């Protein structure tokens, strides 16, 4: 299994996809942090003022917004095999295909730990500089550190979900578009409609919100429950994908 995980890392780092996604995630989180801090204390925006614990909690959770890029990282990691038709040599090398999926889950989870720590570090530094310039840089106290690490955990889990979703759908463009539509259209609708908002806490977006600090919203699970729910979705998708899609004939 270690061999297979290392093979996945070789695949990842011999193209530049990882660099684009990591830089994209950093740029994204810098943008969100700067915007958020700029409007902090602005009565119309509703964002609490710089220096308050709630502001710090929310500003340091913006890293979780990069979840979509980590989702894409996982999706590409799995679906590239089908898109570029390398599934044939990959499954010739490892005929027990479930092992390939497990290796990808492990490889992308571990790589995402490093990437996610970079993203939340960028988040923290950006907020420290910008909020510091506006009067009060957040300290790295226990609460703030917990927020940062929760964001990082969310990003890692989204990469796992991406691998699972990729295994289930196999089609790269379809999986990415489907993931985006789900996260930005379907879930917000479910979240906002009173009749369905009760179910929202059981959905991936609800799990993410539970794990990371957000504005007051619908009823949510506890942070750890949210994390387990998210991870469960990722592993369920990977399991179903292995059984239903990956085992299918490679034509």
């Amino acid at each position, binding site marked *: 299994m270690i*061999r297979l995980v290392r093979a996945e890392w070789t*695949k990842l780092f011999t193209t530049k*996809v990882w660099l684009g996604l990591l830089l994209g995630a950093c740029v994204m989180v810098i943008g969100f942090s700067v915007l958020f801090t700029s409007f902090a204390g602005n009565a119309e925006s509703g964002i609490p003022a710089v220096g308050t614990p709630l502001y710090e909690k929310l500003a340091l959770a913006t890293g979780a917004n990069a979840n979509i890029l980590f989702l894409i990282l996982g999706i590409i990691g799995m679906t590239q095999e089908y898109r*570029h038709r*390398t599934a*044939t040599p990959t499954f*010739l*090398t490892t005929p027990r295909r479930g092992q390939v999926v497990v290796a990808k889950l492990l490889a992308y989870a571990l790589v995402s730990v490093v990437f996610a720590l970079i993203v939340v570090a960028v988040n923290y530094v950006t907020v420290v500089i910008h909020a510091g310039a506006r009067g009060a840089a957040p300290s790295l106290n226990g609460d703030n550190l917990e927020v940062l690490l929760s964001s990082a955990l969310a990003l890692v889990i989204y990469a796992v979900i991406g691998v699972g979703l990729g295994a289930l759908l196999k089609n790269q463009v379809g999986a990415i578009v489907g993931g985006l539509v789900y996260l930005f259209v379907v879930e917000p609708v479910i979240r906002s409609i009173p009749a369905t908002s009760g179910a929202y806490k059981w959905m991936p977006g609800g799990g993410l919100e539970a794990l990371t600090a957000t504005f007051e919203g619908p009823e949510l699970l506890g942070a750890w429950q949210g994390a387990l729910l998210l991870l469960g979705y990722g592993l369920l998708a990977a399991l179903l994908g292995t059984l239903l899609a990956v085992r299918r*004939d490679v034509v």
Partner: protein
Amino acid sequence: MSDLGFTVEPGSVTGFLGPNGAGKTTTLRMLLGLMQPDAGTATFNGAPYTSLPEPLRTVGAVLETAFHPARSGRNHLRVYCRAAGFPLSRADEVLVQVGLADAGDRRAGGYSLGMRQRLALATALLGNPGVLVLDEPANGLDPEGIQWLRGFLRHMAHDQGRTVLVSSHLLSEVEQTVDRVVIVGAGRLVREGSMEQLRSGADGAGTVLVRGPDVARFAEVLRADGAQVVQEDGTLTVHGSTPADVGRRAFATGVELHELRSRTSGLEEIYFQLTSGSEQFAAPSPTVQEATR
């Protein structure tokens, strides 16, 4: 595919032939565990591919000439070195073996079709396997590349004792390379045997052409012996015999002959007969040929 069964032996190159759509690629993918047959098994030294402990060390296969376009040829090979637990230096060795050493660091997306074939072959060679399975390996190769491939495959089989199975839809492409052929048409086995057997005619034994002034009497003699004979003016076509046997009988009978030779139809013609038209899939026996004349 239905009811297809054949065995491939070490030390020889076996051609797996059939027209496009005959099911060659499907058969090879079933052989390698990439597709599931409804029934039946394919084994390498007695074990199915998916149960081989180190499949790349047993079988090397070229089924796909597609690669991640942004990854270099060398890195592509390194991925599978990692996955199979081979040292990364194997990637460099096989690049040299297939003549891609200078192109190893270029993106595979920029490779020509011939270079892709070579890279795919290099991937198959990573585990130094005893069995090579190649699907249309000559596609996209220039004449020089085809020449090289012929020599390479023969070296692999004859000098190194490996088992080589190579598919093609063109007999002429592999004619000079293969020792044995397995011919399929419409998903069924049409013929299996050595090139010699295929060359000598439809049924292993040859067809003999006889001309002379009094062949009508000789035809009676041969028919009395139980031979299949077709008479056309002063020419006899004797199926399932050899010039030596026919000549001996003529000498014993005292018949004057002006010509006696084995009628070898061109290989391409035989191959075409074997694979065209579904009624021919039952392997044209001499009686069938006679009936259609």
